[in-house]
């Protein structure tokens, strides 16, 4: 049943317009990698890490996850078609997990492939590409979970999500230690720095924390979404 829900959600999420827009911002990451040019000098590696952190982990991963995950159940709420899923004898956790699988399944390739490719094109050091792949995967998992729940709970999830990305992840998490502990971006950037031996971000996490916390956040968000599905009033 989870597979059927995931397939339906993925088909609904991936509209032509969204796909083109998301491919374009992914393509820009690859373009940046090409512009940086392949090299193994410390400067080149540092530039590639900066590009991966700044564009890949702080923009591409959260924005792609936001667009797709917030639409996963949000589209069904907005156009009032949730009733067709909700009124079937399907446990709510299966709907939530199906939507999460669809979100991760569609967002991961649109994030991980361009980020990894950009890192590979920009640096001859293979640990940079490996770090980019691992960090973008972890970031996408975490963001997809959070935005799945957000998309179900609030109207105009894109606006709220962008505010979260800019204010919390982009500003507060960089300056306030407590906020950094609750920042997916900090965990992802920490993981990249640990693997590629780069400069750790302020309030960095351990490598274990960076691997564990974002997926755990996603799991908690999926549980929360299932709970909201259970108690929601369906239009």
């Amino acid at each position, binding site marked *: 049943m989870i597979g*059927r829900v995931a397939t339906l959600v993925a088909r609904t999420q991936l509209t032509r317009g969204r796909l083109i827009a998301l491919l374009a911002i992914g393509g820009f990451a690859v373009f940046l990698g090409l512009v940086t040019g392949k090299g193994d000098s410390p400067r080149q590696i540092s530039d590639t890490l900066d590009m991966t952190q700044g564009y890949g982990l702080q923009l591409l991963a959260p924005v792609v996850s936001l667009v797709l995950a917030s639409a996963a159940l949000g589209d069904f709420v907005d156009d009032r078609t949730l*009733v067709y899923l909700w009124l079937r004898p399907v446990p709510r956790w299966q709907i939530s997990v199906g939507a999460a699988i669809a979100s991760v399944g569609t967002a991961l390739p649109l994030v991980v492939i361009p980020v990894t490719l950009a890192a590979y094109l920009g640096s001859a050091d293979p640990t940079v590409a490996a770090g980019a792949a691992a960090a973008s995967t972890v970031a996408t998992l975490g963001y997809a979970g959070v935005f799945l729940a957000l998309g179900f709970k609030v109207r105009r999830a894109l606006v709220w999500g962008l505010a979260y990305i800019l204010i919390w992840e982009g500003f507060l998490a960089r300056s306030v230690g407590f906020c950094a502990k609750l920042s997916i971006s900090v965990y992802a950037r920490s993981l990249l720095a640990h693997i590629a031996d780069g400069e750790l971000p302020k309030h960095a996490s351990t490598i274990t924390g960076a691997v564990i916390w974002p997926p755990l956040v996603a799991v908690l968000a999926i549980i929360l979404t299932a709970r909201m599905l259970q108690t929601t009033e369906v*239009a």
Partner: protein
Amino acid sequence: MSDTVVEFDGVSKFFGGVVAVSDVSFTIEPGVTALLGPNGAGKSTVMRILCGLAAPSRGTVRLLGKNPRGAVEVFQHLGLVPQQEVVPEVLTALEFVTLSAELSKVSGPDTAARRSLGLVELDPDDARPVRTYSKGMRQRVKVAASLVHDPDIVVLDEPLEGLDPRQRRHMIELFTRLGEQDRTVIVSSHVLDEVERLASRVLVMGKGRLLASGDFHAIRELIDDRPHKLRVVTDKPRELAAGIMAAAEVVGVSIVRGNIVVDTTDVAVFRSSVATIAKQADARLMEVVPLDDDLESVFRYLVGAS
């Protein structure tokens, strides 16, 4: 053993300060039951509460003896045609109905979906996505999806909207047949004539309250027994009004903007007697028009009487 399939006990629903449904109690047994009421009467809210889509603010609801907002297993026995027109638009009719069958754990979902689409006279092999369908076709897709798992309870919220006369007739036959198969079919409508053809039992709602319930014909009599308002246009309103006032079937007369407005308990008798009265008053009778021969006024009357 009780035949009660649906039980509402003192159900109210508030949206902030707005009372959508107020202290409604009824039971529904197998067969076709119509929920009748004008727009805004609370029918859709009752339907949503009945299906578990909304929780009552007060009171209890039982569907096959269970809380519809509790275990999801109860949805195995329930099919709903919601009021909204939309269905997942990227799917074809067959994909949508097959998906509905799969989610309801029907064995052989493709076969069941084809059979269900056949019931509503849609082509299962139509490759167009549902978004290209007309309103009537979408309505039929929704009906097919609601029936694909062979439910014991079918809830239809304004199911005839958007259908052409032939399709309406076909759907009415289908719903009647389902009722004869001892299923519980609950249909909401604001069209009296449709309900008359569909259901023998009705629940009449207005302003969020249950105004009347029972056999359709008893309600119809109640409706027909209410005073009716007519406008009589004549060249001598004062003279004719004096004559009309003496008629036994007339309960009230007034003159509004030069026309006579008559309250009568029997329209047919009044129509036949008014010509004689006009002749006696030497008045020229130009028009006798009913002012309240619509469903809205029927409900207004029932709201006033309750």
